[in-house]
């Protein structure tokens, strides 16, 4: 047989590595051909490697060639190998070709390359770690390993693309790479040139089409149902039987919460929202809500937990906003701080403290840190060329300049950072700068400024990261961002600004300057804590006892993972530094981005006007949390998840379990006599509960939510199969069976109510009230599934937990909040608006839409009249009137009539 290969073809790697198998069994000739030669007579497009068999037939699939070599050596096919090879061909290859093309042909780096394959890499890692075997299909290296190793080698041989947190993948890959056949194949194909050796071949290939939309999918990877051992089942049963007595005593919540030696002390921060913006759903899920879930979970574990956040209030943006609204900066901050606090209260965020940065403590601590840095020689002084807008008569803060990014050429780069390539920019380096306010071209003027000497601190930072990162739960994107910053080398960063609204700089000659927000905003966490307790240093200067979790969107990673640690290390004051940096990706809105200026998307204050309860918002946002990849908020999907997951799955199960107790057993939990099937169910639930804990301990919030839904699915199935509503009418044995099934089901419901607490606190409390769950069982979650509602326990009144979302309701919400890019672009074409900053965007509506709205107004008008005629409940009427007003408003908008000045709206 004859093998045709071509220089730099990626398929050569697995084929050559597998070829060793046939040595001594068959004669194998290897010929090199050009990348465009058609070696297979019946294929129109060239394909290498190709194996011409002695029969004259051809194998043109890389995996099949490898398979053939293995088969010749006596190997037998099996399901697991088939499954890996099919996965490799259908899932891994499309993603991998896109990544390699980016890297090798287009010369891109970083997330552009890793992004498409991350999901696939994670899949391999999870499979390896779940099955506890060193190789993909068992204890020894086999076909699946060679094929996947060969496919991945070009990418993963560069450590930058082998994420270190994927430990199982890491060791699997290293093991294979050091084996002789693989090593030799790698040398032959890559010729010590690394991935660039593939260039001559890949350049000649068509650009691979991007893999199926998987980048913005909301579907998780499903976990497989594990097989249970007898011991596991026995242990689950023992734990269950112990019941309530295995719960430790409840710890009273202290005020103030302070670290306790010998306990787990968890300090949680959520990125400080900038005060003058109303946060949108993306901001909410990115930090405050994510951190809230973890804080609530942490309290359920009885860890000593402090969760803090606050508004970030200093800076130019505040000054400008104050000018716009004719208020002082302080007044603006006071006003918006309340708006923020209200939104988070509505979302049920369980802050221990929600503070602000404009306090004397902030000045004191910031100035102290600065002084220590200054005396230790970490502050530089330099003259800065700065952009000044003569028209507006002021120095322009970075975010008030826009221009072309000097690195990637992106047209709308901001003065501090480019949204496209993510690089930090010095505003004067921008090409074609423009003042964002008046659009005139600013001039460069010089001014004295202070710099943080990051290069001098780099070594300490690396030492600290070297100790902190391994084994920690920093998210992959955070690790990646920090790594790429360090690779590019740190540069001194300016920490002062020509402004008034900020923390004053305590240094002669700098009286009219303040600290730049990114230097002192992260100090906000400390000062907010200091306003909460005078013993704040027990949290913040106590790295030995405190575990610091910081939540943010990925654009905030450099400040938390790099700049603040450098400042803190430079003070030599033993500050508590971030142990786990949890960064999310971005949440999109429908098919586009959230945009305040274009009125697209749902903002925190609007969520409450939709009539959808806060817990439903929480659930859906957490369900689509951009964990590991971007995700998208979609109204249709929200309706679907509410109706399928909450209503039909979770709500249905919990309601049925409770109803059976009320209806068939007079409200008292019946006796339970567990059969082997019940015991297996116990063990499955326990396993899923453990999984939930493992995930939440690693702050994989979105994945852990799936465990809850999985358990309730098990529960529904269990009820469905055992049909207690039929058995209750049967003989004695049947009735006993109905009792056991009902009792076990209602205990699963009780467990779910606790697991749900971090995600949907109100629903959780409702369930616990309905079931009259004993107090300690509500507030503590162990790793075992306990019988917390023993036989004889009396439950309360059971009622449905969730409401169906209707299509027309969601449609009208979707219309109200803007439906994504398509409509948007149409709208922009239709109306060329002279003013770019129109806040209330007008949706151009066709005559049909207007007709639909008019009909709705009429219908709603009738509803209101009817209710009034029936003398219905006032609140109900008010709600319907609100709907009517909203519809009228939409109609006015659609018809292009001027809005009546904000009648029904609270906000100006």
């Amino acid at each position, binding site marked *: 047989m004859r093998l045709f290969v071509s220089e730099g073809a990626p398929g050569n790697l697995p084929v050559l590595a597998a070829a060793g198998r046939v040595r001594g069994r068959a004669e194998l000739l290897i010929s090199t051909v050009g990348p465009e030669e058609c070696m297979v007579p*019946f294929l129109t497009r060239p394909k290498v490697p190709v194996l011409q068999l002695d029969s004259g037939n051809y194998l043109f699939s890389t995996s099949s060639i490898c398979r053939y070599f293995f088969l010749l050596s006596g190997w037998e096919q099996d*399901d697991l190998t088939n499954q890996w090879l099919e996965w490799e061909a259908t899932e891994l290859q499309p993603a991998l070709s896109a990544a390699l093309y980016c890297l090798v042909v287009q010369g891109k780096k970083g997330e552009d390359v890793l992004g498409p394959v991350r999901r696939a890499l994670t899949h391999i890692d999870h499979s390896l770690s779940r099955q506890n075997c060193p190789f993909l299909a068992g204890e020894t290296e086999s076909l699946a390993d060679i094929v996947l190793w060969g496919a991945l080698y070009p990418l993963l041989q560069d450590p930058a693309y082998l994420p270190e947190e994927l430990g199982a993948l890491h060791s699997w890959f290293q093991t294979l790479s050091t084996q002789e056949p693989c090593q030799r194949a790698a040398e032959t194909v890559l010729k010590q040139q690394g991935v660039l050796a593939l260039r001559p071949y890949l350049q000649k290939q068509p650009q691979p089409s991007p893999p199926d939309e998987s980048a913005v999918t909301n579907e998780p990877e499903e976990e497989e149902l594990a*097989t249970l051992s007898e011991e596991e089942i026995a242990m689950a049963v023992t734990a269950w039987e112990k019941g309530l007595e295995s719960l430790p005593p409840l710890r009273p919540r202290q005020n103030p919460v302070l670290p306790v030696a010998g306990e787990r002390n968890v300090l949680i921060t959520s990125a400080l929202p900038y005060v003058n913006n109303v946060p949108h759903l993306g901001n909410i899920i990115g930090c405050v809500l994510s951190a809230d879930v973890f804080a609530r979970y942490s309290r359920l574990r009885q860890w000593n937990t402090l969760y803090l956040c606050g508004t970030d209030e200093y800076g130019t943006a505040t000054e400008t906003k104050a000018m716009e609204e004719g208020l002082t900066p302080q007044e603006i901050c006071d006003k918006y701080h309340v708006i923020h606090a209200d939104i988070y209260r509505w979302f049920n965020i369980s802050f221990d403290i929600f503070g602000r940065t404009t306090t004397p403590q902030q000045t004191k601590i910031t100035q102290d840190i600065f002084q220590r840095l200054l005396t230790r020689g970490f502050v530089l002084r330099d003259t800065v060329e700065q952009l000044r807008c003569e028209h507006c008569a002021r120095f322009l803060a970075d975010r008030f300049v826009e221009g072309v990014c000097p690195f990637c050429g992106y047209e709308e780069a901001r003065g501090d950072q480019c949204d496209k390539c993510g690089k930090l920019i010095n505003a004067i380096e921008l090409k074609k700068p423009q003042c964002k306010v008046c659009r005139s071209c600013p001039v460069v003027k010089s001014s004295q400024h202070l710099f943080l000497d990051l290069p001098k601190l780099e070594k300490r930072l690396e030492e600290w990261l070297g100790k902190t990162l391994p084994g920690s739960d920093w998210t992959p994107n955070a690790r990646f961002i920090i790594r790429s910053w360090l690779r590019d080398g740190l540069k001194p960063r300016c920490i002062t600004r020509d402004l008034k609204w900020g923390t004053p700089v305590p240094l002669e000659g700098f009286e009219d300057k303040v600290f730049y927000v990114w230097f002192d905003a992260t100090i906000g966490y400390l000062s907010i804590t200091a306003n909460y307790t005078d013993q704040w240093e027990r949290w913040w200067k106590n790295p030995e006892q405190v575990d610091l979790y910081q939540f943010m969107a990925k654009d905030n990673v450099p400040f938390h993972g790099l700049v603040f640690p450098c400042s803190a290390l430079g003070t030599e004051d033993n500050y508590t530094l971030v142990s786990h940096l949890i960064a999310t990706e971005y949440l999109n809105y429908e098919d586009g981005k959230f945009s305040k200026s274009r009125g697209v998307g749902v903002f925190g204050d609007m969520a409450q006007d939709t009539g959808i309860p806060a817990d439903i918002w929480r659930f859906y946002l957490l369900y689509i949390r951009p964990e590991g990849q971007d995700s998208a908020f979609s109204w249709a999907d929200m309706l679907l998840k509410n109706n399928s997951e909450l209503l039909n799955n979770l709500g249905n199960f919990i309601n049925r379990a409770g109803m059976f107790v009320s209806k068939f057993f007079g409200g008292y939990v019946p006796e339970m006599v567990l059969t082997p099937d019940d015991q297996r169910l116990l063990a499955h639930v326990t396993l899923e509960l453990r999984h939930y804990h493992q995930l939440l301990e690693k702050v994989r919030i979105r994945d852990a939510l799936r465990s809850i839904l999985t358990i309730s699915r098990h529960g529904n199935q269990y009820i469905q199969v055992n049909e207690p509503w039929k058995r209750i009418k049967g003989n004695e044995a049947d009735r006993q069976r109905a009792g056991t099934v009902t009792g076990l089901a209602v205990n699963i419901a009780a467990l779910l109510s606790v697991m749900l607490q971090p995600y949907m606190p109100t629903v959780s409390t409702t369930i616990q009230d309905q079931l009259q769950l004993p107090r300690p069982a509500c507030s503590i979650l162990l790793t075992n599934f306990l019988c917390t509602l023993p036989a004889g326990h009396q439950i309360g009144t059971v009622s449905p937990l969730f409401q169906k979302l209707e299509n027309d309701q969601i449609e009208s919400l979707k219309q109200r909040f803007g439906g994504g890019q398509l409509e948007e672009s149409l709208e922009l074409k239709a109306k060329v608006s002279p003013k770019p900053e129109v806040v209330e965007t007008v949706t151009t509506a066709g005559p049909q839409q207007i007709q639909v709205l008019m009909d709705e107004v009429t219908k709603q008008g009738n509803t209101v009249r009817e209710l009034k005629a029936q003398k219905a409940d006032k609140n109900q009427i008010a709600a319907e009137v609100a709907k009517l007003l909203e519809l009228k408003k939409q109609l006015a908008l659609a018809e292009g009539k001027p809005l009546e000045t904000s009648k029904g709206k609270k906000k100006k």
Partner: protein
Amino acid sequence: MAAAAELALLEKSLGLSKRNKYSARGDRQIPVLQTNNGPSLTGLTTIAAHLVKQANKEYLLGSTAEEKAIVQQWLEYRVTQVDKHSNKDDIRTLLKDLNAYLEDKVYLTGYNFTLADILLYYGLHRFISIFIGVKLTTELP
């Protein structure tokens, strides 16, 4: 044809009496089979090969090493090339290639009917109404 329907059809033609239930995963609705012992199986060709073994018809996976490799090659071809959402030109090329390959053959492996023929036939079904003109009938069992 949805993957689950296709697998049900295969069960029937293999003479399997027990009907399996399939779930689907992800956007592409990849079929998943939950087996009684051990973990689930994912993927059309993986499950199909598993069913063939259940039905004790291993010969449908090929008898020699060469046949086995060829069967798997065309199964892979089915899920990567035939199932790809291609434009008309791609489909034309695909059918032309297949036609050229089958010119001197009765079945994909030559003279023996295998699982590859079954799944490729199912997979091509959706094109055939569009491209009546292309000669494919040699392949039909």
